[in-house]
């Protein structure tokens, strides 16, 4: 055994917390999906669609996503530096503060305290809390890396360092605002400028929360769980630098055909197309890694999670740039296509990769095996089916919406009123709820499996003692 001790309690705490907030976020997601076709389920003032949707997005991005990222990054950093965290007590405080912040965030969003900036809805006092959380994370990550016992920094550490830096810059700059009381503020930037700052932030929140830290997990846990080394180190170097360079240019593809100056839109579109290359660098690296022994897909239950996850990442990073092109944007922007796209990334790539990483970590922490591979396989298939059904349904209805909005009669008048277009969404929205339900059941299998593994681990530890 090693002579150093990892702080597994904090890692475990973050994982359990993130799963808890994930459940909250998913339940709210199901609720709002039904509200779209059953408006009676809006219960004012706290539980209308307008307030719940931000609880859903924030709960999952910050509660589930960031929670898992904090926990798994700590785990990865400790392993790759071959030492415990430099400040274990600070990390524990980080965990408590994280949960307090997410709880307050949920309450404040139910109350309608909302900056109206997508993925930056939290009001300024909570923003300060988020920055403190991030600084604590940065201190522990950098401190531990600087005092590391392993000279070479592995790929995952590069992605974690880039995440820490980029999120700090993005979050602080976009959340600068003029306070007007404790619960209300106005964006420091106005009009088109406000739009440009927000989507520079918004798209890179996707880049540095839903991409780089998840790639850190992918590069660490795929080789760990399969025993196969990453196919090409050189490819990961090229992919890393070009990804973190290009991402920051692309925000304006969210603002195609808005009053934002054309040159910024065009630049955004061009760099978005370029982003296919570094994204696929990681996809190819993942495929070729498992490609050295495809039988792992059968013999190791985690391999298919990672391969499916990186496949969705690959699809996502081709679909995204396609959407940025002006003619495609004119058809699908503002329609349900876009939530279809987002959910392929979150339900497919992020959740699959994160869940697989947690499947790897929890038995390690408890020094045992996973409770049931069968349950994990059931989880995999339900989540896959739910996700595909969700996204495909949304793509179809999105294209339909876009087409109905554009349709004209032979004399040039509009063919459909807005209401006629809306009413045609209902069957698809109902199907989407069913898809979400299937996905949720899949996630319940996952939670059950993790819970039983932890119980098993505790019982084992007790018997050993």
């Amino acid at each position, binding site marked *: 055994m090693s002579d150093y001790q990892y702080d597994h309690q904090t890692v475990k705490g973050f994982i359990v917390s993130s799963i808890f907030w994930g459940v909250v976020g998913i339940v709210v997601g199901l609720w709002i999906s039904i509200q779209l076709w059953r408006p009676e389920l809006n219960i004012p003032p706290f539980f209308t669609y307008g307030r719940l949707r931000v609880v859903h997005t924030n709960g999952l991005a910050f509660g589930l996503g960031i929670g898992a990222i904090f926990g798994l990054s700590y785990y990865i950093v400790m392993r790759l530096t071959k030492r415990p965290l430099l400040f274990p007590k600070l990390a524990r405080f980080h965990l408590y503060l994280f949960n307090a912040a997410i709880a307050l965030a949920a309450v404040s969003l139910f109350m309608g305290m909302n900056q109206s900036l997508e993925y930056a809805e939290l009001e300024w006092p909570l923003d300060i809390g988020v920055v403190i959380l991030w600084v604590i994370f940065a201190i522990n990550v950098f401190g531990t890396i600087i005092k590391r016992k392993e000279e070479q920094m592995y790929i995952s550490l590069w992605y974690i360092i880039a995440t820490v830096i980029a999120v700090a810059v993005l979050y602080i700059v976009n959340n600068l605002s003029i306070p*007007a009381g404790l619960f209300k503020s106005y964006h420091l930037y*106005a*009009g*088109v400028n*406000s739009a440009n700052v927000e989507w520079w932030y918004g798209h890179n929140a996707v880049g540095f929360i839903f991409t780089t830290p998840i790639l850190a997990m992918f590069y660490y846990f795929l080789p760990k769980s399969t025993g196969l080394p990453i196919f090409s180190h050189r490819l990961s170097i090229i992919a890393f630098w070009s990804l973190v360079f290009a991402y920051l240019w692309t925000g304006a593809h969210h603002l195609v055909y808005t009053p934002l100056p054309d040159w910024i839109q065009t630049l955004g579109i061009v760099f978005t197309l370029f982003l296919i290359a570094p994204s696929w660098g990681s996809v190819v690296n993942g495929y070729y890694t498992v490609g050295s022994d495809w039988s792992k897909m059968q013999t190791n239950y985690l391999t298919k999670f990672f391969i499916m996850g990186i496949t969705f990442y690959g699809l996502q990073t081709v679909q995204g740039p396609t959407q940025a092109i002006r003619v495609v944007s004119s058809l699908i922007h*503002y329609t349900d296509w876009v939530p279809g796209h987002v959910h392929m990334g979150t339900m497919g790539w992020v959740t699959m990769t994160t869940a697989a990483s947690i499947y790897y970590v929890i038995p390690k922490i408890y020094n045992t095996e996973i409770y049931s591979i069968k349950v994990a396989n059931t989880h995999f298939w339900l989540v896959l089916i739910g996700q595909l059904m969700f996204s495909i349904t949304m793509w179809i209805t999105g294209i339909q919406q876009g087409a109905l909005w554009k349709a004209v009669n032979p*004399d040039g008048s509009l063919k459909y009123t807005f*209401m006629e277009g809306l009413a045609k969404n209902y069957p698809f929205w109902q199907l989407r709820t069913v898809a979400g339900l299937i996905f949720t059941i899949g996630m319940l299998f996952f939670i059950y499996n993790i819970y039983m593994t932890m119980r098993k681990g505790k019982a084992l530890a007790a018997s050993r003692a």
Partner: protein
Amino acid sequence: MSGEIYRKPIMFAIVATVVILIGTIVTMFYPMLTPEMHPKLENLKPYTALQLAGKDIYQREGCNNCHTQTVRPLKTEVMRYGEYSKAGEFTYDRPFLWGSKRTGPDLARIGGKYPDAWHYQHFDNQQAFFPESNMPKYGWLKDTRLNPAEIEAHMKANGFPYTKEETSSLSSKSELDALVAYMQVLGTAVAKKPAQVRAVAEEKNPLAEDAKAYQLGEEIYKQNCEACHGQDGKGGIGPSLQDRTWLGKEGDISDSQIFALIADGTQAGMPPYGAQLDKNRIWSLVSYIRHEQQSK
């Protein structure tokens, strides 16, 4: 590539920061310093205290989750909503409220499209206007009075001009009053152009004697007009269509004038339907209205 950097975390972090900042500076910081990011239309006025209170409620209720506020320069979009959005219309919006999803219609040109009464009734019960609407009800906003002190602080933070009388008078207004006031100012800095009017070739209704046209007209009326003009045109939010005085004149309204009214709308709160209803359907509607007038 030299592998040195992967052994020096501080150097690595510095290089990564520089790489991240290049795109940030070119696409985000640099434009901020140019006047093209700070345009203002001449007609654009800062929000009044009541309007700002309405905008705050719009944000609090998360209306921007379902409604966009930017008309794209696309043909059908301009037909449906009106003139496309200009950069100089949003100078006083902190933040911008363009939205990213159009579950409900765009609101960039909603100001002045309907009379206030329409908004009050629609917020209270959207399904009475559009039976298939999925919008949550917001009539409950009328039960809360505005707080002048709070709105004053908000006006100050935005740097908008206001008077004490203006803000203190708000205590008698409800949140719904504020939201309607906000709706009515949206997009009004750009002059309204009449909807694309189709040339009215005929002076008289070519479908006047057509029984099928009457039936189609009745159907169109129920879908589009009844919510405001009442059953059989007896009036409501909009004037009665039965008494033949709804243009302010008695009895001498020509078929082509009715046609133009439906197609172009009025400044008084009648929305234009010229982009939504083709010529045949508008004439059918005229047939129905004439028939209702004669039968009363």
